[in-house]
């Protein structure tokens, strides 16, 4: 629990990261009408997909930073050595990533939807699908960050590694929202969330041990 509070405190004291990823999302969404068409009738069917892709991208973009400073100042190593169960550390990291990156986007979804001329009921389903889907994104992003932390590499490496794993989430989330809540997709998305919650922190913990031994 202390870990969670620590992460949230760090985030509150330097909210720049969260604000930047939010700004990134808003900006990208603003680019689409400019690039495609300002016509609401043509924008509206794209809305759910675009907002999902932008969420995915800004989660991937923010993942790099979420472990970098902890790795640089040695606190990641201390966490691995500490009494805390390592899977719990990884889960907390994922939660922090979700709070700083996905949650602001989720709250902004009505505005983003409005920018793409989406009606309110579609925005509602979009938010529901993001609530179920974005934690999976965060869990995978932390796994990817753990795999690449400490490597002197371009920031494109993490998205290359992790984006293929996000495909099922993207498909189920967007299908659920565009079909207006067809139960099958919703159940499958929820099942995927449960599966990711109980497996990915443990996988990340395995990778964390490798990461600190570099």
């Amino acid at each position, binding site marked *: 629990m202390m870990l969670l509070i620590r992460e949230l405190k760090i985030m509150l004291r330097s909210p720049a990261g969260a604000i930047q990823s939010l700004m990134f999302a808003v900006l990208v969404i603003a680019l689409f009408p400019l690039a495609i068409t300002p016509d609401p009738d043509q924008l509206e069917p794209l809305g759910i997909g675009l907002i999902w892709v932008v969420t995915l991208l800004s989660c991937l973009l923010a993942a790099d930073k979420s472990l970098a400073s902890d790795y640089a100042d040695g606190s990641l190593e201390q966490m691995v050595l500490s009494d805390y169960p390592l899977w719990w550390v990884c889960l907390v990291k994922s939660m922090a990533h979700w709070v700083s990156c996905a949650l602001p986007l989720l709250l902004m979804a009505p505005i983003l939807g409005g920018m793409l001329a989406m009606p309110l009921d579609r925005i509602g389903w979009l938010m529901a699908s993001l609530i179920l889907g974005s934690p999976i994104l965060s869990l995978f992003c932390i796994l990817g960050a753990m795999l690449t932390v400490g490597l002197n590499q371009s920031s494109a490496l993490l998205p*290359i590694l992790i984006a293929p794993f996000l495909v099922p989430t993207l498909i189920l989330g967007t299908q659920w929202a565009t079909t207006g809540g067809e139960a*099958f997709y919703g159940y499958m998305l929820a099942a995927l969330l449960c599966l990711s919650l109980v497996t990915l922190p443990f996988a990340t913990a*395995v990778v964390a041990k490798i990461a600190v031994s570099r």
Partner: protein
Amino acid sequence: MWRWFHQWGSPKFFYHRSGVLIPVLALASGLILGAGVFWGLLIAPADYQQGESVRIMYVHVPAAILAQSSYAMMAVMALISLIWRLKIADAAVQTVAPIGACITLLALATGSLWGKPMWGTYWVWDARLTSTLILFFLFAGVLALRNAAGQSQTAGRAASVLAVIGLLNLPIIKYSVDWWFTLHQPASFTLTDRPAMPFSMWGPLLMMVVGFYAWFFLAWLIRLRHELVKRERRSDWVQQMMKQ
């Protein structure tokens, strides 16, 4: 049984014993592939619906089958290297990844060449095409992580974890893509049913599949032996071998 397993896990033992397999595999893949190409491209009948384009299948189907199973083999090797820390398994993961990526690319390329006359387009966002594309990205991810992390032991372990997670995720990706959209015909071969096409067509196809596997193991073995010598260059047996 365990002794046998340990022996083959030793790079020196493996290197010396596996040498005899190279001519065998080379001969087998050369003969079978040659005969399969001859039978498939020249003798086998053209399809009544697809015409001569069906001959692309004699390359496409083996490549697609091999693409999937080479990922599975890579992931199993990765699991072995994670659990038992066998040096040779780690080298096997590293050497099979580029081959698998190329085979996957071959399957995609031949598939899109076949798609143009059949479906009227090089690419459709169909379930099987998409999941093969994702398979290619999974290979690319393992390769990229390897390259990024350099030659160290830990680099290998991180890439191995990624490969194993990829294997566990493949069914999920496959099913989710299936629910999304599907146009591709179902698989031509299953283990349980008799094939629906005549022998004159599945004969050469089966031959090409076997030939592809033989070639694949040949390429893998050559790369693996090369990699082992490179990694063990400071050990006595390599030094002795190089002196001779």
